[in-house]
């Protein structure tokens, strides 16, 4: 994917409009996804610690709590979360390579596609395992 500079909309004063980062395509979308997945994981983590804390109340309450997660709707939600975590982790490594590896900025674009490739490679076995669990395989 080669992308020229995106057309920049300007205000009447001629300044770039909006606050959206307009870099090259791969870099910009990697950044957008890194943000969205980061917030999503954070919100989930808050809930996840609260539900796990039920182990401290009683075995029954804990089993009941996670019992409400054991249906296919929640199962798909879990798959989405794993997808988000895997992307964030892989792209996080890419961000660090861009920052610290001397050739990082030169290879940021192929690294973005490597992130996508590794993400697919890791998602496939996970989805086989997880979907067969939640759909009772």
């Amino acid at each position, binding site marked *: 994917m080669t992308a020229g500079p995106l057309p920049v909309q300007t205000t009447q004063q001629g300044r770039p409009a909006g*606050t959206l980062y307009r870099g090259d395509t791969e870099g910009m979308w990697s950044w957008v996804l890194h*943000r969205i997945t*980061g*917030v999503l*994981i*954070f919100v989930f*983590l*808050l809930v996840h*610690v*609260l539900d*796990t*804390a039920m*182990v*401290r109340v*009683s*075995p*029954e309450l*804990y*089993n009941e709590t*996670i019992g409400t*997660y*054991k249906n296919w709707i929640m*199962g798909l939600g*879990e798959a989405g979360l*794993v997808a988000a*975590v*895997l992307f964030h*982790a892989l792209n*996080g*490594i890419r*961000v*660090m390579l861009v*920052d*610290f590896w001397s050739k990082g900025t030169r290879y940021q674009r192929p690294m973005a596609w490597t992130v996508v490739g590794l993400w697919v490679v890791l998602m496939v*076995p*996970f989805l086989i*395992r*997880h979907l067969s*669990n*939640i759909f009772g395989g």
Partner: protein
Amino acid sequence: MSTPNAPALDAPRSPYSRTKSTRSNYELYSWVFMRMSGVVLVVLVLGHLFVNLMVGKGVAALDFAFVAGKWASPFWQIWDLLMLWLAMLHGTNGVRTIINDYAERDTTRFWLKMLIYFAFVVVVVLGTLVIFTFDPCPVGADPSLLPSFCQA
């Protein structure tokens, strides 16, 4: 030779600074922390997902006995404690950055940050207490819900 009012010169080779700033290097340390914690979290979080969702029956096997079996060992206690603290510090600091980027009104920005700092304290304190005070074999609990080693 020396004039009494000559401007003070920096010592040779002292670090260059464009402006003499009285601000701290907080944002620099936070940037470094995001990367250091990120490296550790790759192992902790992906290991957590693998052991809980991929090994054995995956999610279907999650229940009290499973959690109790893990936290009976100091290895998983320390693993989960470290993961809790690092993920919460990393996540809270990351969301702080995002709030600073998008919330333009001072009061909105302030209260959104107070909200996530409050969530940070509640979740980290609660999670830490749960890991440290957890009893895998609570007295009086239904034995069929407990890990097998409780009967011994």
